[in-house]
C-alpha cells in the first residue's frame, strides 16, 4: 500500500540551516547536510530545502549545497526558493535535486511550470502555494506571504496541475506557526480538486494533527519544520503513533 509521506523542511540561508536545532549528536547544527542525514536516518520519507536567501549572488552557494546533499542522501529531495527560470531549475536538477518547487515565479509566469515539466518531466515540478483565508475565501499569496494575488487557491491548484505540475505543496499562512493543526478545509478542497499528490503544510504541532490531515483529507504527505528541528516531535515517535492510527506509514 502506498505510504503517506512525512517531510521535514529545512530553511537554508547562505548554504546553512537557519533555525536552531537541539539534536545532541550533530556536531554542527547549522550544517544542512548533517541535519539532512540525521532526518534520513530517523526515517524521513523525503526532504525539502527552502532557500530563503535566494539572491542572485547566493545562487552558487545553493547549487554547491545541492551537490553535497545529492552525494550523501539516498532519498528524494526538493529544492525551492528563488527559482525563476528554466535555467535556475536546470542548475538545481543537474546538481542532483529530484524536484524543484516554484512559488511566486509560477504565479508571475505560469508558463514556467510547463517549460520545466516539458524538459524534466512533471514529477520534477512542485507547485508551492501559500494560501490565506480572508473575506470567506482562500486566496493565493506570493513573495513569502506578503503579496495577495487575488487568485483563488483551488483554481490556481487546478491550473498548476493542468500546466504540468506533478505535485502541490499547500501551506496555510493562517495555520503556519500556530501549532494548532493543519488547515483541514482547504487541504481537503485542493486534494479533492486535483489528481496529483498534495503535501499539507503549516500548523503541525502534535502527532494528532498528522493523523487528522491524513484521515480528513486526501493529502499524500505532510510537511513540518520547527517541530522536528526543535525535537518537539521526533520522526520515529510520530511514525509509530500514525501506525497505531492505522495510517499507512513507512
Amino acid at each position, binding site marked *: *500500500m*502506498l*505510504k*503517506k*509521506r512525512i517531510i521535514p523542511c529545512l530553511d537554508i540561508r547562505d548554504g546553512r540551516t537557519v533555525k536552531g536545532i537541539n539534536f545532541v549528536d550533530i556536531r554542527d547544527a547549522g550544517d544542512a547536510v548533517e541535519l539532512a542525514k540525521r532526518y*534520513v536516518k530517523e526515517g524521513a*520519507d523525503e526532504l525539502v530545502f527552502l532557500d530563503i536567501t535566494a539572491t542572485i549572488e547566493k545562487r552558487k552557494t545553493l547549487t554547491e549545497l545541492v551537490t553535497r546533499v*545529492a*552525494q550523501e542522501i*539516498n*532519498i*528524494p529531495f526538493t529544492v525551492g526558493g528563488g527559482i525563476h527560470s528554466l535555467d535556475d531549475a536546470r542548475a538545481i*536538477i*543537474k*546538481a*542532483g535535486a*529530484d524536484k524543484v518547487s516554484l512559488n511566486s515565479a509560477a504565479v508571475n509566469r505560469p508558463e514556467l511550470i510547463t517549460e520545466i515539466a516539458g524538459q*524534466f*518531466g*512533471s*514529477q*520534477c515540478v512542485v507547485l508551492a502555494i501559500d494560501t490565506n483565508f480572508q473575506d470567506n475565501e482562500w486566496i493565493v499569496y506570493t513573495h513569502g506571504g506578503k503579496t495577495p494575488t487575488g487568485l483563488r487557491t483551488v483554481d490556481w491548484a487546478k491550473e498548476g496541475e493542468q500546466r504540468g505540475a*506533478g*505535485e502541490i505543496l499547500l501551506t496555510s499562512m493562517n495555520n503556519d506557526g500556530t501549532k494548532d493543526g493543519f488547515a483541514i478545509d482547504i487541504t481537503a478542497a485542493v486534494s479533492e480538486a486535483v*489528481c*496529483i*499528490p498534495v503535501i499539507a503544510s503549516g500548523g503541525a504541532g502534535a502527532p494528532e494533527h498528522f493523523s487528522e490531515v491524513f484521515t480528513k483529507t*486526501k493529502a*499524500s*504527505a505532510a510537511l513540518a519544520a520547527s517541530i522536528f528541528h526543535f525535537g518537539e516531535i521526533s520522526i520515529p515517535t510520530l511514525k509509530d503513533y500514525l501506525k497505531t492510527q492505522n495510517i499507512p506509514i*513507512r
Partner: protein
Amino acid sequence: MIAIIKYNAGNITSVRNAVERLGYDCRVTDDISVIQSAEKVIFPGVGEAGSAMIYLKNKRLDEIIQSLVRPTLGICLGLQLMCRHSEEGDTKCLGIFDTEVKKFPALDIVPHMGWNNMAVEGSPLFTGFGRGDTVYFVHSYYAEICPETISRCDYILPFSAAMQKDNFYATQFHPEKSGDVGERILKNFLAL
C-alpha cells in the same frame, strides 16, 4: 567499471552518486565501446518514452543495449524502454521484455509517487529484501505483469515493479532513492 548510459533523461546524477557511495568506479557515457566493455551497465531515466527512443536510435544505443551480454539494469523509464511498446507517445521500445507499458487509469492520484511495498520472487536482486520493506516509486505509466516479472506492486492495479530476463534486470522504482533498502538492491546488482 560500471557504465551509466547517458541520454536525454533527467537525474542521472543520483544514480552515479549511489554507485559511487557503494565504492564502484563508474562512468556516465554514451560511448559505445565504453558501454560494451563495462562490467555492468545501468540504464536509468526519468523522462518521456518517445523522445528518449528517438535519441537512443540516433546514437545507435538501441541496438547496443539489446546486444549487451553483461548484467544490465534498467531503472524507471529504463525499465519501460526495455519493454515491447509504450502507450506514452505510442512508442515502439527495445522489446527485451515482451510486455506493454500503459498509463495508469485515473482512478486514484497519478503519478504513483512515494514509498510502496512490493512482493518479490527469488531473484538475486532481492537478497535480503524483507517483508514490509518499501521502495520509492514515481511514475504515471506501468509495465503489465508478464512472465519476466520478478516483483509485483499494487497501485490502482497490479504491475511489474521489477523484471528479469537473462542478463537484463529492471526496476520501476528508484533503488538510488530508496534509502538503505534500495542501496541493498543496487549492491546486489553490482555484486552479480
